[in-house]
């Protein structure tokens, strides 16, 4: 009896250690039964996306009347975990929503390159960079996402500063913040770094004022010298802002979504590193501070010779899964999801800057007008160029920089190693 038990354990062990089969699952099974396309996103349950999706479906129905489009909404917190499981089972949706950048680029093995389908849209839409890798495009952008710096004009007025002329150098910026703190008792920057995303916003908002034009272009192209003085300066400034008390209290335990924005909206800080679309953007702030009092600025010039621009890129976009039965059909749905009427509905309802730059945005208030005027000269956001793994590491190191357990040199060394391995 004991011998038999021993043999069966041995057999089980041998089978287990065989290392056959794959944890990632195969990608050969097909889905998308004829006449139906399944779309996954985290927007279809939002009331303010209803119009957008309806218009997209109408546009698609004109081209392919017999095909049903099924929208499945997933909770955003678990979206990539669920998508990961679907990808591994090879039985996922036909069309999927993605954030631009690392999350999409990590999964291009499961996506269809769309270059041959989206030709006509290339000129009309902006923000393709966040959805491309190695020269191929994997999703069509719906919104643009960027990182302007918002400020509270009422606080500027209270401190006796000109609300229409924000600082253009770092020293002026510090001086303004000091004046406002003196007059109102409020901190300079609302900061929520619990999820580790605060550093991403900091890099993309202030980075354009620190890196030279050449360094910026190199960074986006993939040639990142983490030990260079200007890159180190980004992290040094991040640390200094924390040490000097520019940030709101308890930055490492304040979640960015939505507490950080809540602090700015509640008038607890004079500035916030915000977004361009959806949440934490001009629409939310307009509601709380009134459109007239929401100011937008680019980074002040921190390195002499730097040319601050708006760092922005594709925000969210839909891609086509590799296992879909008819890639051309799915690509047409993707094109309908970024058609002009759909995007116009989305931009007004959800407070987003649509990827279609020809859409009229005049009723979004002065803040939106400033943002839109900067799109033409804008460049891809710095943090979007990094892999998800490096962003995750950067988040943890940023918390260490604020709490003092990591030095800037240690941080950039670790990041350089992670970036190289990616």
């Amino acid at each position, binding site marked *: 009896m004991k011998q038999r038990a021993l043999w069966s354990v041995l057999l089980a062990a041998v089978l287990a250690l065989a*290392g056959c*089969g794959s944890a990632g699952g195969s990608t050969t099974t097909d889905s998308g039964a004829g006449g139906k396309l399944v779309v996954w996103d985290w927007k279809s349950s939002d009331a303010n996306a209803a119009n957008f999706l309806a218009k997209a479906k109408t546009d698609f129905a004109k081209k392919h009347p017999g095909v049903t489009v099924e929208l499945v909404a997933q909770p955003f917190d678990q979206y990539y*975990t669920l998508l*990961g*499981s679907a990808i591994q089972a090879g039985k996922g949706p036909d069309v999927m929503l993605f954030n631009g950048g690392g999350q999409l680029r990590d999964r291009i*093995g499961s996506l269809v390159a769309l270059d041959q389908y989206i030709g006509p849209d290339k000129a009309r839409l902006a923000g393709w960079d966040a959805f491309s890798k190695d020269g191929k495009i994997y999703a069509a952008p719906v919104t643009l996402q960027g990182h302007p710096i918002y400020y509270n004009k009422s606080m500027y007025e209270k401190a006796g500063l000109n609300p229409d002329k924000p600082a253009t150098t770092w020293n002026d910026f510090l001086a303004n913040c000091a004046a406002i703190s003196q007059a109102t008792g409020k901190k300079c920057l609302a900061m929520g770094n*619990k999820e580790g995303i605060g550093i991403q916003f900091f890099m993309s908002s202030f980075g354009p004022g620190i890196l030279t034009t050449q360094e910026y272009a190199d960074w986006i192209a993939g040639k990142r010298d983490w030990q260079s003085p200007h890159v180190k300066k980004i992290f040094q400034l991040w640390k200094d802002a924390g040490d000097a008390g520019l940030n709101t209290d*308890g930055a490492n*335990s304040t979640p960015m979504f939505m507490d950080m924005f809540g602090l700015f909206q509640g008038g607890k800080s004079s500035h916030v590193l915000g977004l361009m679309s959806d949440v934490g953007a001009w629409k939310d702030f307009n509601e709380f501070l009134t459109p007239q009092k929401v100011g937008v600025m680019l980074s002040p010039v921190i390195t002499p010779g730097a040319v601050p621009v708006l760092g922005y890129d594709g925000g969210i976009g839909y891609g086509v899964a590799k296992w879909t039965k008819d890639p051309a059909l799915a690509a047409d749905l993707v094109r309908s999801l970024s058609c002009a009427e759909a995007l116009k509905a989305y931009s007004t309802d959800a407070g987003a800057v649509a990827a279609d730059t020809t859409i009229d945005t005049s009723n979004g208030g002065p803040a939106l007008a400033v943002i839109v005027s900067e799109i033409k000269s804008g460049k891809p956001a710095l943090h979007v160029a990094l892999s998800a793994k490096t962003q995750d590491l950067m988040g943890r190191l940023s*918390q260490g920089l604020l709490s003092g357990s990591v030095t800037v040199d240690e941080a950039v060394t670790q990041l350089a190693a992670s970036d190289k391995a990616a």
Partner: protein
Amino acid sequence: MTVERSRSSLRSAPYGRSDEPAAVTPASGRAASPRRWPRYARSERLAPYVLVLPAILVIALLRLWPLLLGVNFSFTGDAERDGRPVGFDNYATLAYDDLFQSALRNVGLLVLILPVAVAFPGLLATFIYLKVPGHRFFRSVYFFPAVLSPVIVGAIFNLVLAFDGPLNAMLGIAGIPAVDWLGDPHAAIFTVVGVHIWATFGMALVVFLAGFATLDGSTQDAARVDGASIPQIIWHVFIPGLSRTIQFVFVTTMIGMLTSMFGLLYVMTSGGPEGSTYLPEYYIWIQQGQMNRPALASAASTVLFLIMLTVGLLQVSLLGRAGRDD
């Protein structure tokens, strides 16, 4: 076998029906004929296995098979190497990954904190057993946190422990400087473990109370007559008498800490700050979903399983030896 024996004893014992004729034939023709015995015996022999089969199938299909699959997958690769055997590469990655090492250190910390997590409900159960004033009220109130879902508990304590929240405000009134409970990398893990103990000690308390109910009151009375103080009674009467209960609570609390803290971690700290509250469970979740590395996650799961197995077996043997007076 037992069935046959009892059957034969039924035959030999007199039924005591004196009014019936001597030739008492057992009912329905299942007579003493030896040829019929083996068939009946065989179905009797198979009956236990058939009855246990559903439970065995459930365990085998839903526990053992996925376990083997997971170990199997841990020897394959991710991304470009998806589906290809890669030997011990994933385990090597884990060995050099700072984050996983931090998670393992936290596991060690949990093992060290375990006696506190067991002593706390044990002490409260003792006081309830000794009928302190208000013991009936405490008995019901102490169980209440255990019925809350971890997400609710996490959300509540997020608010209470916020840097500008009520706890720091109270400390401020007492003149103690505010502590960033969830943002200080040295404090965060203890904070989360503390909240976990608050949320789950009710279960252990109930088990202890059940253990107390099995205690023989006479030993306690004898000790009191001999003039023992409360701490002496606890140490010399209660703890030896409750050794099996303590053993059980140790093992279940350990399992709970290692595998049920995910909800709190996710809601309260997201593994931060600086990865200081990472546990293997959270690591597995992040690697599988966000980082898209399921084979690495399988390797981490296997390591977690081996840790739990080792710690569990060690505990049982250590505590079994310590409480050996059964």
